[in-house]
């Protein structure tokens, strides 16, 4: 028997750390070679790390939620044979995940993934992970057709049972199938948890945002004259941060186990951002204490990085509140799902000229839709309206935003 320490390999894009998202096995479990053992979460994807060999997981050195550095020992595997092949990196900076080779001279334990070399090449070319393809041939042998079907989004493995929960009247075997993975999979899990556990309430508010838009434009021009940038979201983050300071119950979490509401000292505002990989929420840390210029720079930094797919893990952690600005997509009102363990979220729509009545006269004003969603276990209707009112006053009279 040999003990093998499994270390976090470099999982790409120069990331030096990753979060332990989920243990897929428990201490004492027997694992086969290539069996996923732990799911790691990086800024852009969750990665399942396979076991380098067959054996028993005798120790887990890290817990779910821990952020660990590349090279740190994740778990200890007790194996019958020495695991001698690639399980990590000699040097940092390599691009791909080390797929551990077999312990023996050639063939992995058991029949392993049965796919002829040409099919393996096809899978590489199409970016298909053979571990996720069910082979249709004898002994599970994977054919070129299996890979092509998988790449086209047709999962040949019968997963009807895993879709889970309620029986559906629509036969699940029909239609195109796209595998949930990475950021998308994470979104599915988080949002399901949110919808399952949080009683959501959303209020809709229409704000007169003409002065706000003017201020944003002025600050942007000023920044540009200095060669800097001033993202529109900066003032939204600022307004929300001020409102959160005045309404700390919105900057909180519910500790259900202990029956307590935790008011956070830190005020870190996440900005929902569409990326090619999916929706991610990079966080502007200490949004309440940053000078406006610094805040603008920070908003610019995290959102640019997100759009380029270069978000650091630390930049998606620690959020205490989320805003979503759908203006660029001409978004209006919307109900949103809160990101647990947060308790509220504000979504802003597009500022557009609308006919409104002022002093008995119909006039055109620049109006912005705002949707405030909160967790009714923690926040009641009155607090929700009060929070919305504070944001309204900050946006309709935006001088306060520029004063800090």
């Amino acid at each position, binding site marked *: 028997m040999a003990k093998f320490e499994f270390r976090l390999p470099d999982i790409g894009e120069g990331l030096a750390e990753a979060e332990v998202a989920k243990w897929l096995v428990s201490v004492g479990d027997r694992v086969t070679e290539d069996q996923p053992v732990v799911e790691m979460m990086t800024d852009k994807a969750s990665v399942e790390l396979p076991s380098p060999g067959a054996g028993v997981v005798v120790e887990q050195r890290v817990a779910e939620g821990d952020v660990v550095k590349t090279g740190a020992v994740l778990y200890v595997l007790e194996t*019958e044979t020495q695991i001698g092949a*690639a399980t990590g990196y*000699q*040097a940092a900076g390599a691009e791909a995940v080390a797929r551990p080779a077999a312990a023996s001279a050639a063939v992995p334990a058991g029949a*392993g993934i049965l796919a002829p070399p040409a099919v*393996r090449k096809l899978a*590489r*070319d199409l970016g298909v992970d053979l571990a996720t393809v069910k082979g249709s041939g004898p002994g599970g042998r994977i054919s070129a057709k299996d890979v092509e079907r998988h790449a086209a989004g047709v999962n040949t493995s019968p997963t009807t049972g895993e879709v889970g929960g309620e029986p559906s009247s629509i036969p699940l075997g029909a239609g195109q199938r796209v595998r949930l993975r990475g950021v998308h999979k994470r979104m599915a899990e988080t949002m399901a948890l949110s919808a399952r556990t949080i009683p959501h309430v959303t209020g809709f508010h229409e704000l007169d945002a003409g002065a706000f838009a003017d201020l944003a434009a002025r600050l942007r021009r000023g920044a540009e004259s200095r060669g800097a940038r001033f993202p529109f979201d900066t003032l939204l983050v600022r307004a929300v941060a001020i409102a959160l300071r005045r309404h700390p119950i919105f900057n909180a979490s519910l500790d259900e186990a202990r029956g307590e509401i935790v008011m956070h000292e830190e005020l870190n505002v996440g900005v929902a951002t569409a990326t090619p990989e999916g929706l991610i929420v990079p966080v502007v840390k200490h949004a309440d204490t940053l000078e406006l210029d610094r805040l603008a720079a920070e908003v610019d930094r995290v959102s640019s990085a997100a759009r380029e797919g270069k978000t650091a893990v630390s930049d998606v952690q620690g959020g205490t509140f989320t805003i979503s600005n759908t203006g660029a997509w001409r978004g209006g009102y919307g109900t949103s799902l809160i990101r647990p363990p947060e308790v509220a979220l504000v979504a802003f729509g597009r500022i557009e000229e609308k006919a409104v009545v002022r002093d008995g006269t119909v006039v055109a004003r620049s109006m912005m839709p705002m949707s405030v969603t909160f967790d009714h276990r923690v926040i009641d209707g009155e607090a929700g309206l009060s929070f919305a009112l504070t944001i309204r006053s900050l946006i309709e009279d935006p001088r306060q935003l520029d004063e800090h």
Partner: protein
Amino acid sequence: MVAGDQSDPVDCLILGAGPGGYVAALRAAQLGRSVTLIERGRVGGVCLNEGCIPSKHLSRFAAAKAAAEKLTSSGMPAFAGVPDMAAFQKSRAAAVGLLVKGVSSLLEAAGVTVITGSARFVGRTRVCVEIGEERVRYFDFKDVVIATGSRALDLDALPFDGERIVEPSRALEWMAVPASLLVVGDDYVALEIAVAYARLGSKVTLAGLRERLLPGFDRDLSAAAQRGAHTAGVEVLLSSDPSAQARQADRVVVSAGRRANVDALDLSAAGLTAPSTLFKVDPQLRLDRHVFAIGDVTEGLPLAHRAMMQGRVVGDVLGGKAGAFDSRAIPRAVFAEPEVASVGMTEAEAQSAGVEISIGRFPLAALGRAVIESATAGFAKLIFAMDGGALLGAHLAGPRSTELVAEMALALEMGATAEDLALTIHAHPTFAESLMEAAEVSLGRPVHVRLPKK
């Protein structure tokens, strides 16, 4: 970096022109990269110049003599005289020269720049190449492949003296058959040299350091190799201390493993950590974003054909293709008495992996071809997964095993099952039939051997 030194920018730099390095160079060049290949000796490396090629040349020379002698009982005139080793060495050198020239002309045709010298890193993207005694050139590379190979290790008790106690490569160059020869080692290199010289008339003792010959092979192959060596006239000692015998032998060859050539590379200058023994690489053969390693410097068996496939893969990766070194089957071929070859899992490996297996073993005694050649001692032993019947390993002993193993490697890569092999017609009468028959045995329905009564 020394201030003021001129350096030449290069695209792909490959260190070492052995079977890994030259193949990588050819493939990368084929895919449009501009390749500079650094080699301190001749292209082809140890394999071509002083390993695989000349050793198999010697084995073939000796085996031909043994085969001719075997036929005298069937009426062939007796073999007269002693082998002319000087003439053999001439033909060996000619064969090596021809192949070296072939590799050189391929490299030239592909536009690969070959520079003779020894390289070491002097920066993250820079190497210094010593050319001869005097000259030094610097190259700045975009990508580098470390393919510097390995060298023979000696034993403290038996250090190489280049004359009487030598590494295996030197034993391929002798101009005369030694009257007595001690071969120290139990690997295929030691075994091949022992058998070849015994056949050529030397009094050979093979002193294995471990408890069996060919450790790492299936135990049945170790046993077959030991019996065969005895048949060839080799005295086999196991778990031995060869010091005493070494004093009496005319010549001593030591095959005690190999060591990666990495010390002289000055890896720290490139910000790389030198491995304690061998590099661990990822499936793209990467050590670092622009640093790759292939062949004997990487973890795995130090075999030319493994290095060559890694060379192709790294060439693909350098050429922007989605390459990966993911071969399931790395065959091993031993040119001794009998020929022994193996691919995939051994019986012991399958057992320790907890896989339920079905073994098909077919003795060559039941094969027409083997009877014709008076080579009935061998066998084919195939290991299949009980679940699904996929081939997991093949272990062959007998004439042409080193060729037959290719079919087994293909079967492994294709995920072929016992049924696939059993239902494929193999030409009669050939040794290859033994593979089909062994598959039938594993399925419990052989027609050419009797199954043990239950």
